[in-house]
């Protein structure tokens, strides 16, 4: 069971980091916003993995459903396909890597552990009709918003680029 949770956490975290790297390297603001939506969805999925249902719902409803949706609309409106780099050089990656290593080493040495909720209670959450209805309604809301966004973009942009 621990292996399953650990594997799921590593998979979700690695894909979240990869899509975050996609935000940095893409030259298009719209794709950066879409990568951001993927990253945020995966962070919400990690909340779901640990059994923090209310956090999962709040992140999906408020953050992914409202804030990032408006960011995608804004990025589609002010779409830029150029990225020359700002005032800092690429050598700033080194202190950032040192920071990440320091955080990991410090938290390993504290030997602090997180206990995920058991798989049985996750299954219990999804088997309850009310909770299942909540998840279905949230998914339907997200899909409706995304379809509306795509139709708005097609209306403004004329075609998909």
């Amino acid at each position, binding site marked *: 069971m621990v292996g399953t949770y650990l594997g799921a*956490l590593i998979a979700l975290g690695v894909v*979240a980091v990869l899509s975050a790297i996609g935000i940095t390297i893409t030259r298009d603001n719209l794709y950066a916003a879409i990568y951001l939506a993927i990253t945020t969805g995966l962070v919400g999925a990690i909340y779901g993995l640990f059994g923090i249902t209310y956090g999962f719902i709040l992140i999906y409803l408020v953050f992914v459903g409202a804030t990032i949706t408006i960011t995608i609309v804004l990025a589609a409106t002010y779409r830029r396909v150029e990225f020359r780099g700002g005032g800092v050089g690429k050598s700033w990656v080194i202190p950032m890597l040192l920071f990440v290593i320091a955080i990991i080493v410090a938290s390993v040495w504290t030997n602090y552990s997180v206990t995920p909720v058991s798989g049985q209670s996750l299954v219990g959450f999804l088997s309850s009709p009310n909770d299942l209805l909540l998840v279905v309604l949230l998914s339907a809301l997200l899909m409706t918003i995304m379809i509306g966004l795509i139709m708005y973009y097609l209306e403004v942009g004329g075609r998909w680029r």
Partner: protein
Amino acid sequence: MEINAAMVYGFASILLMIGYYSALRANDLIRVLISLELMFNAIFLALIPLFAVNSIVAFGILIVTILTSSTEFMTLITAIMALDRVRKSVRVEEIKAGGEAYVEAKSGST
């Protein structure tokens, strides 16, 4: 049934640093806004181990963080749209402290 918190903190710090780097190398304000949201994702991730200590307090902090960040982003989006209305641009170079260049341009044109 336990996972070391170093894993969660590691992913959170990586996301935070990617957000910093993306914001520092950004050319327009939309990319800065996206980078800020990425940093808030890292904060949400770093909150997870707190749920193992005191879930009520952690949930309160999560609600405050989500609502604060959402309000902050709405304010920033409004500011970006207002800047575009005034300057006709959302580039980072357009931001000047106190808007002196805009005042100078307005006084010069009249």
